């Protein structure tokens, strides 16, 4: 065994740890993270989750599209795109209406370019609902997704 090589590897790995520590601690963005909406994310009914994010009474809008497969074979990983032509989008929320906790994600947005894509869990066949606020008004659209194997719980 080459002792110099051992020494180098040891030094390199501790340098890696320092880099990780910097990444974890010192590279925070300037602004504080949003306060997690406990009432919204722990709600077990869609109506309660909507109330917690100010989405009650949102107007149906044809300017929002929830794009996803009609049938999800694996409910643990369902790709969802929310696309909208609404201008000045301020926030987008996504809900799986029959999930144990329906609220999946809620984003405050600036300079939004009209499309957001993520992968979500769906416990069973259900509507996925997008809530979009634009110009101080709240709009909504849904898509029904048939789930053949659930992604939440056991």
């Amino acid at each position, binding site marked *: 065994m080459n002792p110099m090589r051992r020494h180098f590897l040891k030094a390199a790995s501790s340098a890696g740890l320092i880099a*990780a520590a910097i*990444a*974890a*601690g010192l*590279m*925070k*963005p*300037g*602004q504080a*993270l*949003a306060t*997690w*909406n406990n009432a*919204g*994310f722990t709600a077990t009914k869609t109506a309660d989750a909507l109330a917690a994010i100010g989405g009650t009474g949102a107007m149906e809008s044809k300017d929002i599209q929830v794009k996803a497969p009609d049938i999800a074979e694996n409910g*643990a*990983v*369902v790709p969802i795109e929310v696309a909208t032509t609404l201008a000045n989008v301020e926030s987008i929320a996504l809900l*799986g209406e029959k*999930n*144990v*906790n*329906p*609220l*999946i*994600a*809620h*984003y*405050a*947005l*600036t*300079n*939004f*370019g*009209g*499309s*957001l*894509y*993520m*992968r*979500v*869990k*769906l416990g069973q066949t259900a509507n996925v609902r997008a809530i979009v606020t634009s110009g101080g008004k709240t709009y909504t659209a849904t898509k029904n997704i048939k789930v053949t194997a659930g*992604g*939440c*719980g*056991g």
Partner: protein
Amino acid sequence: MAITMRARASKDEIKILMTHPSETGLRKGANGQPIPAHFVKNIQVTVNGKTILDGQWGVGVSKDPYLSVKVQGLKAGDKIGVHAEDNKGEQGSIETIAA
């Protein structure tokens, strides 16, 4: 443990992929005991230091979360920052330059 992630930005879009178990707290392990919840709660994306996405996630986000978002006015050379924190207080950050 830090949350590890990758980020890429080009043209009008920022793409983020994290490595995270994303446990809901609802699943039971082989021993019949619930697996404790462990999921990402906050994700923040900045462009040249300005927050363009301030997100909150619940347990319904898939394992190894992936997010892509289109952003108006994004251009090559813009400095993109991503920061995430989970329910155990574990954090992760990454920076990249838009291509």
